[in-house]
C-alpha cells in the first residue's frame, strides 16, 4: 500500500479523462457561441466571471479541483460512506421544502449567497453510490424479489421527493438506475413489462380510447385462441389473460386519465401531447384563459422551443454555419439555448458532422464506462459504473432527443455541455469517483 501511494495516477483510465476534457471544451465553446456578444473582449470576459462562459469555465475548474481531490481519496472511502451520503442527499432534498426559491417555477432550488444549488442534481451521485453499496453487500441476493424491491426503493425514493418538488423531469432520471439492476440480474421480464406499459401509455395518447380498448380486447381474444388447448387443461391461464386484459384496459381508460388529471401538471401534459403532435384533450382552461390565449401560450411554450430548436439544428445542414454565424442560436431564437437546448448550438454551428461527432464522443464515453465496469473485481465498483453509465445515457438521450423532437421537453441538462454549475460539477464528481474506483479495480471493495 505504501508503495502504491506515489503512483496514484498510475491506474487512472486516461481515456475517460480525455473524453471528459473534450466534452467540457465543446460545452464551453457552445456556451460561448450562444452568449457571446459582438465586441466583447474575449479574454477579459473569460476571466471576469460576468458572462456565462466565464462562469462555466470557473465551474469547470472547481469541478476539476474537486475531481483531483477525489483521485487523492482512498477508494474505500466511497463504499464506506455510501449510505451516509445517501442520508445526506435525502436530507438535502427535504431541506428544499422550507428553503426553496421559485426560480423559473421550479421549487427544487436552494439559494445561498449568489448561488443556486439544486440537490436533485447532486443526489444522483449518492443514489449511485448507495445502490452500488446495497447490491454489493454479501447478504444481498438479487435473485430474490425482496432485494429487488429494496434496490428499487433506494433508486426511486429520491425521485418521489423530487416529484413533490414539481421536477418530474429530474425525477425521471432516477429510473435510469434500472440499468444497474438489469445488469445485476433483474429479470428482463420486469423491464419488458415496464416497456409494455410504456407502450400502452403512448398508445393511450396516440390512439382513440375506444379504438384502443377494441384492439386490446382483440389481442386478448387472439391470445385466448392461441392458448385454447392449454386453457382446456388449466383454467388458471384464462384467468390470467382476463386479468391482464382488465389491467390494460383499466390503465388505458382510467389510470392514464387519472394521472393526467391529478398527477401531472398542465405544461407536462402539454409537452407530452406536443411530442406526438396531438392536441391536449385535458385542456380544461382552469385559469380561465380564452382559447386564443391558450393557443398563444402553446405557441410560445414548449412547441415554440422545439420548432425553433429543429429549425436551428436543421439549418446547420452538413457542415454547419460556423460557430459565430449560427443566427438561430446567436440571436436568441431558441430559448434556453445555453442550458437545456445547448445541442442546437452544436447542431447549427457544426452541422450534421459536428452533431454526429458529439454523439460519437458520448457513445465512446458510455461504451468505455461499460467496459470499465466489466473489468472491475468488486461488485460495488461495477454497480457504480453502471449507475454512472445509466445516468449519463438517460441525460444524453432525453436532452438531445428533446432538441431534435424525439423526446418530450423535459428540462434536464446535457452532461458536461449544458451551462450550469451544479450540473457540471456533479457530473464531474460522478465521473471522477468512477475513475478513482477504477484505479483500484484489482481491489475488492465492500
Amino acid at each position, binding site marked *: 500500500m505504501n508503495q502504491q501511494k506515489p503512483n496514484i495516477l498510475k491506474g487512472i483510465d486516461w481515456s475517460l479523462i480525455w473524453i471528459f476534457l473534450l466534452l467540457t471544451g465543446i460545452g464551453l465553446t457552445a456556451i460561448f457561441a450562444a452568449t457571446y456578444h*459582438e465586441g466583447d473582449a474575449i479574454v477579459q470576459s473569460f476571466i471576469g466571471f460576468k458572462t456565462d462562459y466565464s462562469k462555466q469555465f470557473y465551474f469547470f475548474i472547481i469541478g476539476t479541483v474537486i475531481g483531483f481531490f477525489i483521485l487523492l481519496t482512498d477508494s474505500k472511502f466511497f463504499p464506506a460512506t455510501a449510505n451516509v451520503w445517501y442520508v445526506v442527499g435525502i436530507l438535502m432534498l427535504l431541506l428544499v421544502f422550507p428553503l426553496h426559491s421559485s426560480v423559473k417555477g421550479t421549487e427544487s432550488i436552494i439559494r445561498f449567497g449568489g448561488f443556486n444549488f439544486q440537490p436533485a442534481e447532486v443526489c444522483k451521485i449518492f443514489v449511485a453510490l448507495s445502490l452500488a453499496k446495497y447490491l454489493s453487500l454479501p447478504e444481498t441476493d*438479487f435473485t430474490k424479489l425482496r432485494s429487488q424491491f429494496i434496490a428499487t426503493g433506494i433508486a426511486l425514493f429520491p425521485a418521489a421527493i423530487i416529484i413533490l418538488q414539481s421536477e418530474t423531469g429530474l425525477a425521471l432520471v432516477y429510473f435510469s438506475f434500472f*440499468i444497474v439492476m*438489469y*445488469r*445485476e*440480474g433483474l429479470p428482463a421480464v420486469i423491464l419488458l413489462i415496464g416497456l409494455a406499459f410504456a407502450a400502452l401509455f403512448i398508445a393511450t395518447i396516440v390512439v382513440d380510447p375506444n379504438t384502443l380498448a377494441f384492439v386490446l380486447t382483440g389481442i386478448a381474444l387472439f391470445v385466448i385462441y392461441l392458448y385454447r388447448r392449454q386453457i382446456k387443461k388449466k383454467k388458471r391461464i384464462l384467468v390470467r389473460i382476463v386479468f391482464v386484459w382488465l389491467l390494460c384496459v383499466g390503465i388505458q381508460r382510467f389510470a392514464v386519465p387519472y394521472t393526467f388529471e391529478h398527477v401531472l401538471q398542465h405544461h407536462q401534459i402539454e409537452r407530452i401531447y406536443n411530442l406526438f403532435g396531438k392536441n391536449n384533450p385535458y385542456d380544461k382552461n382552469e385559469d380561465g384563459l380564452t382559447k386564443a390565449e391558450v393557443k398563444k401560450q402553446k405557441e410560445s411554450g414548449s412547441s415554440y422551443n422545439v420548432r*425553433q430548436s*429543429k*429549425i*436551428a*439544428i*436543421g*439549418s*446547420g*445542414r*452538413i457542415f454547419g454555419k460556423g460557430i459565430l*454565424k449560427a*443566427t*438561430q442560436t446567436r*440571436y*436568441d*431564437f431558441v430559448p434556453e439555448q445555453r442550458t437545456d437546448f445547448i445541442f442546437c448550438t452544436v*447542431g*447549427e454551428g457544426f*452541422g*450534421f458532422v459536428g*452533431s*454526429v461527432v458529439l*454523439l460519437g464522443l*458520448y*457513445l465512446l464515453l*458510455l*461504451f468505455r464506462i*461499460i467496459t470499465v*465496469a*466489466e473489468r472491475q473485481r468488486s*461488485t460495488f465498483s*461495477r454497480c457504480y459504473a*453502471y449507475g454512472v*453509465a445509466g445516468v449519463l*445515457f438517460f441525460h444524453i*438521450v432525453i436532452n*438531445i*432527443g428533446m432538441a*431534435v*423532437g*424525439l423526446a418530450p421537453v423535459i428540462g434536464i441538462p446535457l452532461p458536461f455541455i449544458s451551462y450550469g454549475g451544479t450540473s457540471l460539477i456533479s457530473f464531474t464528481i460522478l465521473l471522477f469517483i468512477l475513475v478513482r474506483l477504477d484505479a483500484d479495480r484489482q481491489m475488492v471493495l465492500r
Partner: protein
Amino acid sequence: MSVFNQSRSRIIKLIILIIFLFIVAQLFYLQIVDGKRRQLAAMDNAVFAKVVYPERGIIYDRKGRPILNNTIIYDLDVTPAEIKGIDTASFCQLLGITKEEFKQRVVDAIIKNSSVRPSVFKGLLTKDIQARFEENSWKYPGFTLVERPLRTYPFNAAAHILGYIREADSRDIERSGNFYRPGDYIGKTGLESYYEDVLMGKRGVQYMIKDNRNRLVGHYENGRYDTASEAGRGLQTYLDIDLQKMAEQLMDNKVGGLVAIDPKTGGILAMVSGPNYNPNDLTGSDGGKNYSKLVLDVTSPMLNRAIAGKYEPGSTYKPIGALIGLAEGVITPSFGFPCFGRYTLCGNGKPACTHHGAGHAANLRLAIANSCNSYFAHVYRLTVDNPAYNDVEDGFEEWADYMHHFGFGVPLGVDLPGESRGNIPDTADYNRENNNHWTSCTNLTLGIGQDKMLATPLQMANAMCIIANRGYFYTPHFVNKIVDETEDDTTLMNPFRKRRNVLTNISDTAYNAVIEGMNDVVKFGTARIAQIPNINVCAKTGTAENYTILDGRRIKLPNNSMFVCFAPKENPKIAIAVCVQNAGYGSTWGGPIARILMEKYLNDTLSARSKADFERISKANLVPHYFKRVQYKEDSIRAFKWFKMTKDSAYIQKYITVEMRQQAKLQLAQSKPTKQKNLPKKQFNPLYFLKPEYLVHS
C-alpha cells in the same frame, strides 16, 4: 453472480447503440433531407431584407433647369425603450403637443413596432421644429431625426404635368404584382406616373441580421448578398419653364386649358390647366391637408383640363373642315357661298352668322377670315353628301375618319396618364337617335365645331401642328430624352420620335389656302388681337355656348373662349390652343393669352402692349360664379353628413343662419305646450336635420 450476467453488458451496449442510431437518423432527416426548408426558416427568422430606396430621378426643362428635384425632410422617430428621464413638458412644448398626446403616441409606437424598435413619432417636421429639436436633441434620448427624401418643385409650377408621388395603395401594389410594398412611394399622376420605372431607379437590398426581438444587429455575411440601389434617371423635357410660369399666371383664376407645342418635334412647351395649384403644397408637413382641400374643391384643381377637359371646338374647327372639304375635292380654295347672315338650306335658318354682308364668304380665305358659319356648315354638308359615296352614312364615316387622322376622337398618346379622347360621334349615335333616318342637316352644326364634337386643348393644339406642318405631326410629348438613355428605353420613347404622316396626302395648295386664311384671320379677321409685329401669325378664334344645371334650373353660362394658332407662318415654331371656360369671345381672352406666349417664346421679350395685357389677364378672375354656389352646397351637405355621423357640429355651424335660429326658436316655443306627437307630420321644416333645441342653444 456478475459473471452470469455479463452477456447483459452487450445487450445494454446494443440498446444504447440503437437509441443513438435513432437520434442520428433524426439528425440526418432534420439536417440533410429536410435541411433546406429549415435553412430558409432560419434565414426568415434572422435575416431581414432591408430595402434601400434610390433617389428619384430629376426632371429638367429644355434649358436644363431642374423643375422637379429632391430634398430632405426629417421624421422624428422614437424608440420607446430608450426614453429615460426626459423633460416631457419641455419636449411637448417644443413639438406643440399635449402630454396626453405624447403618452398616446408612445403607446401607439410600442403597439406598432414594440418598444425596442424605432417608429415614427412625428412625421415630416417643419424646418422650425427640426432646427429646435436638433439643438436640444441631447436632452431627449430615444428620439432621433430620420432623413426622408421629399420631392420639391423649385419653380412652384407645372403641377399637372409633373404630377406627384404618394404611398402606393392596395391597387397599385396588386397591379405591380407585389413589386411595390405598402409604404413605398409611387408616381400617381403626371410624368411621375408615366415615367415611374425610369424615375424610381432600382431598389437595393441590404440583408440585415435581426435578433429574436426584430432588432437589426448587423450586416448578414458582411453584405455579400447585398445589392446596391441605382438612382433614378432624370428626364429632359421640352418644357420651357419661363413660358410655363407665364402661361400659369395668365390662366390664374380661370377655368380651362392651354397647350403650346413645337410642331417640328411634337414637344410640349407649356401646358396649363386652370384652376391650378402649387405642387409644393402637396409635399411636406401640410401635404395631406392641402390634398384633401384640393380634392374637395368643386372646380377640380387636380383635373388636368389640357388633356382631359372636353370642349366644343366651335369655330376653331373651321380650318380643319375646310381641309377635309379640299381633300375630298368637294370645294376648291375659290369656292364661295352666298351668306346673308343665316344658313337657309336646311330650312330652319340655322346656324346664324355674325356677318351678313354680301361676299364675306366669297372664297375660302375670306370665309375663314370672317368665320362664316353658313359657309362651313355647307362645306360639311358637301363633304358628307359627297356623291362619291353611297349615302350620308358612308360620307359621314369618311369625314369621321379624317377627324381621327387630325387626332380628334382618339387618344393622342401623350406621355401623361388620364388623357381624354374627346368625342367624334359615329353613325351609330345618329342612327339610334334618329331612328336610322338622318341627313347632313341633322348634325349640320358639326360643320362649325359643335353638335357632339368635343376636343381637348391638346387635340386642338395638335391639329394646329398638323396644319402648320402640312400633314404630319409627332405625338405630343414632354420628354425629349431620358438621361443615360439605354436600349430598353426605346420602347418607351419610340412612339414619340416617329413622324406621323397622317394627312400629307392633302395637297399643298389646300394647306396653303387654309394657312393663308388663318393668317388673314389675324391680319384683318376675328383674331387681329393676336398680331405680333414682324411675325406672321396664323390663328382661328372660337366661341362655344354652354349651359349648366344649377339648383334644378338650366342656366346659360358665358361662352367658352377658344383660340388656336401657330407662328411664324413660314416656319412654324409654336402651335397653341387656349380654352378659357365661360370667358366670352375667343378674341378677348384666348387671343391675347396666345399672343403673349408666342411673343415670349419667339422673341423672348414682351412688347409694351403684351406686358399690359399680361397684367390685365393674370389679375382677372374668370372663375364662373356658379361654382361658389355649388361649393356651398357640397360643403354644407358634407358638413351635415359629418354632423349626422359624429354629432360634431364644428363644420355645420357656419351654415346655420340667424334666420334659421329664429325659426327654430319659434318652432320650439310652439311645440312646447303641445306634445310632439301632435305636431303635423309633413310640415315643412327647413331645419329638418337639426333638433330645434340644439339650434337655440348652440
